[in-house]
C-alpha cells in the first residue's frame, strides 16, 4: 500500500481589530499553507458578518505562552484597585460632595468637544 501524501499546514492564530481605538483581540485559529491564505481564510471564517479594520495572523510557533502559576495572585491587591477605596463615597457625603470618576471627566471633556464641533459648524 502506498502512503498517502499529506499536506501539513501550519497553525495560525487570528487577531481582529474592530475599530482603530480598540486593540487587536484573539478570536481563534486556523490551518493554512501560507500567511496570505491564512488571512483570506480568517476573513471568511471570522468576519462573514462583523466588520473590522485590521486583521493579524501569527504562526502559533511564534507565540510564547506563560504558565498559570506565572500569573498567580497570592496577595490582596485591593490597595491598587478602585474597589479598595469604596469608603470615599461615604467620606465625600460627609462633606456634601461626591466622588469623582474617570467616566465623569471623559463625559465632561467630550461635552466640550461636542460644543466645539457645533460651534465650528455655525
Amino acid at each position: 500500500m502506498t502512503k498517502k501524501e499529506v499536506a501539513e499546514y501550519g497553525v495560525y492564530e487570528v487577531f481582529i481589530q474592530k475599530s482603530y481605538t480598540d486593540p487587536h483581540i484573539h478570536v481563534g485559529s486556523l490551518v493554512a499553507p501560507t500567511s496570505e491564505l491564512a488571512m483570506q481564510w480568517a476573513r471568511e471564517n471570522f468576519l462573514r458578518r462583523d466588520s473590522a479594520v485590521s486583521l493579524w495572523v501569527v504562526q502559533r510557533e511564534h507565540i510564547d505562552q506563560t504558565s498559570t502559576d506565572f500569573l498567580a495572585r497570592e496577595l490582596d491587591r485591593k490597595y491598587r484597585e478602585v474597589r479598595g477605596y469604596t469608603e470615599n463615597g461615604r467620606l465625600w457625603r460627609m462633606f456634601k460632595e461626591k466622588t469623582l470618576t474617570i467616566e465623569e471627566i471623559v463625559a465632561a471633556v467630550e461635552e466640550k468637544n461636542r460644543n466645539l464641533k457645533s460651534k465650528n459648524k455655525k
Partner: protein
Amino acid sequence: MNQEEMFMKRIKQGEKIEATDWMPDEYRQLLIKLIHMHAVSEIMGAYPEKEWVPKAPSLRRKLAIMAKVQDEMGHGQLLLRIVEDLVYPLGKKREDLIEDIYYHRVKFHNVFHMEARTWADAGLIGWLVDGAAIINQAALLSTSYGPYARVLKRICAEESFHMQHGENIILTLAMGTAKQKQMLQDSLNYWWESLLFFFGPKEVTPAAERMIHYRIRTLTNEQLRQKFFDKYIPRIHSIGLTIPDPHLKYDTEKKCWVYTEPDWKKFSEIVKKNNGPKSRERIELRRQAHEGGRWVRQAMLCKPVG
C-alpha cells in the same frame, strides 16, 4: 489630490493614523514633541511620589503609593514605545529618548520639578496633579494618532485607581487633627500656582494651533483649565480648604472661572532650564539609573553559556 491633501482628508473624516502610514513631517514632529514630553513626564512624575515610599504613614499607604509609582513608570514605557516607532525613520532609539532627559533636550511638566515636602504634598499630587493630568489625557482620547489613542485608553483606565487613591489620602487628612488640616492647606497654597501653569499658556501658541489643525488635540489649554476648575473647585471648598487666590470667582455671565494668572515667566524658566527646586536632583538620579543600568541591558543580550 496629493499625499498631503489625502492625509488631511483622512483626518477630517475622523480616521486614525497608524505608525506605518505616510504622514507629513510636521505631523510626525508634533507627535514626537508631545508624546515624548508626555512619556518623560510620566517617568519624572514618579520621582516626587517615590520619595514618599519610605516615609508613607502606614503599610497600606506604602503599598498603594508604590503601586502608583509602578503605574507611572509603566505609562512611561507604553508612551516611549509609541515615540520609538515615530522616531524610527529618523534613526533615533530608546537610548536617545532617555538620554534627552539629562542632556536637557526634552522638557517635562512643571509640577514634577517641585518638591514633595510633606505627606499632604504627596496626597495633593495624587489628587490634584493627577486630576489635572487626567483631564489633559481624557481630552486626548480622541486624538487622530491611533497608537496614542489606544494607549491613552489604557492609561485612563488605570488613572481611575489614582483618582480614588488621591481622594482617599486627602479626605483622611481633611478629617484629621487641626495640624493635619493646616498641613493640607499649606500644601494647596504651595501647589495652586503650579497647577494653573500645568495646562499651559492662555493664548493658543502656533504649535498648539497646528496640533488642533491635525486633530492631535481638539481643546485649548484654557478650555482644559476651566474643566479642571469646574470639577475640582467645589470639592476643594467642600473639605474646608481656601484657594490661595482672592480674585477667584465664577463669572455667571461669561460662564467661566476668573482667576489670578500664575507667574508664567517663573514656571516656563523652570521647565525650559530645568532649574526648579528638585529638577537637577531628580534628573541626576535618572542619569545614574540609565547609565548604571547600561551593562545590565547589554548583558541580557548575551546568549547563555552551555
